[in-house]
């Protein structure tokens, strides 16, 4: 009887087997490679699994509230846990207005700083300034909140609110008492926190615009500023992405806003009045939520925040990638 020798022949035979796990995982068929690659793949898969699990877990815990209120959850104006009424409109309003105010203040300065760093400043100056601006992003949110309560709020109450009221008091935006705690302070603190993020991404985007564009403009006799405008136009989608990225950060910012916005679930046109955001109400009321429905309503707010920021960030990434793809900056935030 023919006896098949061990070793090479089994290797040879393996090639004809229908499916070999070693080859499926690694082109070389090396066991170590297959195990190594499989383990790494699992870790990468874990990242995807975490996101899926987050949606499932948060979604299933919000079911009670979703089933109970449906879409009226987002349009209801009353938030009264004692009466069992959960309408999230005041939080949505506070989040949207404070974020937009923050962006409105942050975008011009962020663009200015980024343009200064990439187009105008000599490298000797640009590097330390860029480092300092990045340092601003390293300050924890709760520290901004502390500074907001004890420095920014009194400053806005004494030196910014009254003049604004004097000049524009006929607008509903600037009526009411200036307490220093409210939408305006929230917006300003958000602006400070979002500026380094937008600046960093716009810097990457501007740096990704080919030098030949600048050389061409300068060769045609354009001034420095005219050249910069051409560079800005080329980086358009990336800059839009950077701004949307900043919006995502502003919408989800929790601690600093919670500490200065006043935490009152009311909708008022005035920027001086206290307000409340989605993230703030979760931070403040989660641990004291009594009853399943109350907790479920707060979890649903978390779900809304998750969905919205996930979409905002996804869109922003795609826009930034469309400009910086193929260059060294991978569009860090």
């Amino acid at each position: 009887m023919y006896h098949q020798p061990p070793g090479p022949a089994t290797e040879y035979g393996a090639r004809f087997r229908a499916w070999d796990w070693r080859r499926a995982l690694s082109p070389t068929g090396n066991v170590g490679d297959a195990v190594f690659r499989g383990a790494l793949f699992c870790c990468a898969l874990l990242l995807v699994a975490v996101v899926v699990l987050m949606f499932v877990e948060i979604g299933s815990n919000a079911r009670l509230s979703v089933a109970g209120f449906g879409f009226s959850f987002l349009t209801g104006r009353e938030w009264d846990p004692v009466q069992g009424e959960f309408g999230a409109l005041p939080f949505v309003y506070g989040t949207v207005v404070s974020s937009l105010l923050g962006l409105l203040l942050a975008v011009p300065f962020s663009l200015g700083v980024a343009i200064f760093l990439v187009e105008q400043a000599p490298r000797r100056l640009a590097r330390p300034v860029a480092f300092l601006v990045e340092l601003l992003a390293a300050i924890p949110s709760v520290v901004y909140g502390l500074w907001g309560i004890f420095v920014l709020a009194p400053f806005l109450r004494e030196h910014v609110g009254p003049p604004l009221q004097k000049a524009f008091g006929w607008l509903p935006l600037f009526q009411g008492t200036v307490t220093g705690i409210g939408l305006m302070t929230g917006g300003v603190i958000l602006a400070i926190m979002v500026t380094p993020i937008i600046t960093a991404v716009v810097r990457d985007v501007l740096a990704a615009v080919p030098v030949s564009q600048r050389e061409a403009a300068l060769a045609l006799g354009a001034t420095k500023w005219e050249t910069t405008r051409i560079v800005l136009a080329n980086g358009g989608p990336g800059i839009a992405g950077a701004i949307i990225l900043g919006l995502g950060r502003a919408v989800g910012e929790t601690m600093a806003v919670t500490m200065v916005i006043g935490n009152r679930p009311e909708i008022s046109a005035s920027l001086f009045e206290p307000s409340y955001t989605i993230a703030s109400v979760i931070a403040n009321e989660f641990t004291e939520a009594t009853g399943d429905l109350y907790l479920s309503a707060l979890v649903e707010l978390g779900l809304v925040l998750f969905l919205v920021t996930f979409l905002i960030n996804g869109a922003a990434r795609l826009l930034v990638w469309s400009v910086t793809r193929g260059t060294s900056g991978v569009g860090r935030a």
Partner: protein
Amino acid sequence: MSRADTAGRRPRRGRRAVSALMTMLTAACALLVVGILVLILGYIAWQGVSSLSLQFLTDTPKPVGEGGGVGNAIVGTLLLLALASVIGLPVGIAAGVYLAEFGRGWFAGAVRFIADTLTGVPSIVTGVFVYTLIVLPMRQFSALAGGVALGLIMIPIVTRTTEEMLRLVPTSLREGALALGAPQWRVTTGVVLPAAASGIATGAMLAVARVSGETAPLLFTAFGSRFFNVYLDQPVASLTVQIFNYAVSPYDEWHAQAWAATLVLMALILVINLSVRLLTRKKF
């Protein structure tokens, strides 16, 4: 680039004035932003130093009027950071290695996109997630839950920095090792990873520094405690939550303690950042 005023055709004076004005405006923006940074850091140092003492660094919190300190919060923060690193770093680095070494095709693209998007998801959402995942089944706030929340926040950050660092390793190094007959896993672990080690360590430390300032995900996971605690199934204090609780309290003494605790927190973050720089300098 800027030396392109050739052929004597200089731009008209008005256009040059606009250009100079815009240069000044952008410089003013930079000055303002840096000024705000100096203001904030200066105020923290000024306020913090006045109520800092050895007793403050070692004591547990006490009722108003009796002093007290943040010793347990310092220990708690270090415990949470260690736990977060144990959870976040291995997974993050492994996923980063996968993206850099095997990262072609739609799956890798999806992982990259999700990692980037996840970095932008608010940390309080991670807190809600960990609450439903760990705190509800355990029926108790715990250090474990806090560590998991911080670890989850670290993963995508570490993944992306690791990938970037590995991409800086020249392909010729990999090809050389492969040509010598080494299997792929030996090439990655023996050649590529050591070459990028300091970069990966930098990314890891920066991720630790980033989560050390997180408050929102700890509010209803680690919760906070008035005592020293090293048990993973018990609630644990942290500097950030302590700062928050003191800051929103109505007592001047606690406000002063909040500033001092902030100074301690900023010093901790600074130490992490400086050790990153020392670490990278020694290696090369």
